[in-house]
């Protein structure tokens, strides 16, 4: 296995709710060109491209076909990966495997979403609509008021079951969710590539409408237009193309469980707060990265949190702290940018959610933190040696993790 590093990152200049000025491929090209600007590379340096988004969110089948020259992928090998919320990291992991295998030396991974072109609720409903219709044929009340089957709360509803189960098992209170939300929104203010950038207090969060207790409107993520590109390279090419200030990918992991929610016809067997795949995926990644005590060894986390309670939940599921300890770390200030375990210094998915790129922004942020190339005010003051990034998706069933480090893994 060859060592692989992220040598550069490119974002669209902004992540906002609506990019009215450009079309889809023009938006993608901005992040690709930024990656070239930031690395000093040209498209000729790229051996292959990996690509992904959630295609039904833009109603566009096989969008890489249209995008070829706009993303500088013309006449190159291109792999399209698509795995739901985890897709950004799946695409980056594909680039990692491409280089680790020795087949390619420098690979560009690009992911994007232009959510304003479609209706995200429709895109999400599209996961299970046929199954829901089949259940309605069998007497299920689609409004969830009567009978067996469908629950209340819409897409927030599904997450609220997870939040409640998490609170029950961890001993955290709903106020901890408010506090985590305020912390991340405040981090986002410092990040020029964040979408929601408004100084937010716990009181501001608590003033928002309760949608499905324990989750409020202020606990949910926005819908965003934006794109992210990472360039990864082999150790030899790192020496050739860079000054050595790169972030090494030392561990990867991915696991699927069953669909944990809205799996109407097949029987739901998993508590959505259990998240076994997180444990399976991260265990593999830690082993690969030679990490024995993640609580001590991990210096920062970027976690995929569509909803505010999830940051706390993932810290525990991913072994960064013990079960039930995350809210104590929050109370102790450990999760702040200058704390012991800075968590979502970027503001997280919770503040910026161009879905396709959300799970790539996590390792991208870790890489920039390690390289100390953060633009904006959210650079973590302490030196980052090992960082944990995470993606989540499907029907609450996929977990992707990637561990980044300031030096390659020792073989």
């Amino acid at each position, binding site marked *: 296995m060859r060592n692989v590093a992220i040598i550069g990152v490119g974002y669209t200049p902004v992540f906002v709710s609506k990019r009215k000025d450009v079309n889809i491929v023009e938006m993608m090209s901005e992040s690709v060109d930024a990656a070239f600007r930031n690395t000093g590379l040209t498209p000729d340096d790229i051996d292959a491209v990996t690509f992904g988004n959630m295609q*039904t969110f833009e109603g566009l089948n096989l969008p890489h076909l249209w995008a070829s020259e706009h993303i500088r992928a013309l006449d*190159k090998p291109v*792999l399209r990966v698509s795995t*739901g919320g985890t897709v950004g990291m799946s695409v980056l992991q594909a680039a990692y*495997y491409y280089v680790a*295998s020795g087949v390619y030396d420098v690979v560009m991974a690009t992911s994007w979403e232009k959510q304003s072109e479609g209706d995200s609720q429709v895109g999400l409903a599209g996961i299970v609509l046929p199954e829901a219709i089949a259940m309605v044929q069998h007497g299920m009340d689609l409004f969830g008021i009567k009978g067996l089957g469908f629950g209340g709360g819409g897409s927030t509803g599904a997450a609220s079951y997870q939040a409640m189960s998490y609170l029950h098992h961890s001993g955290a209170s709903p106020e901890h969710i408010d506090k985590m939300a305020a912390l991340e929104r405040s981090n986002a203010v410092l990040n020029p590539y964040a979408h929601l950038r408004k100084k937010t207090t716990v009181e501001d969060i608590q003033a928002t409408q309760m949608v499905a207790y324990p989750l409020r409107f202020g606990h949910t993520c926005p819908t965003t237009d934006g794109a992210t590109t990472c360039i990864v390279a082999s150790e030899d090419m790192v020496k050739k193309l860079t000054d050595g200030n790169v972030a090494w990918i030392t561990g990867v992991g991915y*696991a*699927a469980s069953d669909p944990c929610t809205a799996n109407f016809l097949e029987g739901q067997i998993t508590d959505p707060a259990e998240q076994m795949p997180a444990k399976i995926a991260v265990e593999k990644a830690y082993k690969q990265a030679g990490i024995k005590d993640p609580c001590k060894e991990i210096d920062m986390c970027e976690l995929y949190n569509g909803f505010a309670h999830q940051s706390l939940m993932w810290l525990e599921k991913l072994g960064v702290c013990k079960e039930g300890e995350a809210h104590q770390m929050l109370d102790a200030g450990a999760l702040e940018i200058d704390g012991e375990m800075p968590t979502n210094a970027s503001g997280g998915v919770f503040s910026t959610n161009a879905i396709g790129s959300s799970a790539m922004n996590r390792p991208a942020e870790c890489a920039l933190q390690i390289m100390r190339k953060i633009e904006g005010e959210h650079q973590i003051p302490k030196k980052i040696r090992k960082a944990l990034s995470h993606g989540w998706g499907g029907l609450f069933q996929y977990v992707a993790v990637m561990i980044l480090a300031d030096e390659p893994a020792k073989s």
Partner: protein
Amino acid sequence: MRKVAIVGQKQINAADVGKSRERMLFELCRDFYKEMGITRHDIDTFVLCSNDFYSGHTISNVFEDCPVGAYMKDETKVEADGVMAATYAFIRILSGLYDTAVVVASSQGGSVMRPYLQMDYSLNPTYDRQVDLLNEVNAAALQARAYMDEFGVSEEVLDKIAARNLRNAARNPYAFNGKTDVTPADVANSDVLYEPIKAMHCYPFTDGACVLLLAAEDRAKELTDAPVWIKGVGDLLETYYPERDVSRSKSVKSSAERAYKMAGISDPASELDLVEVSAKFSYQEPIICEALGLFPEGSAGDVADRGLADMDSAMPVSPSGGALGAYAFCAGGLVRIAECYRQLTGGAGDTQVADAHTALAHGQDGLFLQHNAVMVVSTEEG
């Protein structure tokens, strides 16, 4: 670099499998793992290959993981042709992180979705979908014309190619669209869609799924006495826009060059014993084969007249019947690899090519052969 082999395949193709995709995938994988003497726990990574638009579901793999045995396992999904998915699985094993990988590709183009409509969704939405002129079949017609005009090839040649593939398919139990004794005249008499494309030049709408098991050297030898080694891979994406010369395929040519280089092949026409190509329309077969370096450019007429691509020739092309026998989109390309495996292990029955050791499988995506991928496989470990 590690050695990686294909150690087994299973496939199903029909106009209508009469099953849900969950059941189709489960039965295929259940029987396959049993035949291979493995359980789902013996598989290190699962590479699925399906498409949200083909399945009509956002995140098409959400309900496909469990039926293939990926519950609590490493899994990913490629949304492209099956050859791309197999390539990715191969690369995953090469990385050293996995020893075994399953690739499962499927779509239900026969019973659930409408293939031509899904291809419309792949067009540029700010122009082509607005002017609403282009579709998969008229794109095929334009490319067929470009090839015919460039090289002086007649329509009868396309009919001959289709007839050969349909006859081959009739001998393949995994193809359902075969037609015993069909003649070029029968093809010529089928309905004209867009000139020069006729109904019998086109792939049939297909329900299908295909599964391959890949393994690194040591595991491969434990799992089978007859591994088929993956020797080379290559793929290339061309421009979407109509500025390229579509009478030739630059991307097939470059993909093949990469794969040949990796496989150490310098003279494909003599070193390959057969090829399985995803020619969704009969005119595509010569463009692909010529770009693969098997026949001279523009030689389709000569190849057809002299039977140079026939099952008993020196260079059999798609003895399975190719995409005209069955083509279930994502599974379409993977079936080409599976067919190469059947040939090289001597298990191809009535479509068996004599003395086959090295073969090439081809898959494609997009209109005008925009995205192509190839894989070279061989019984020689080398």
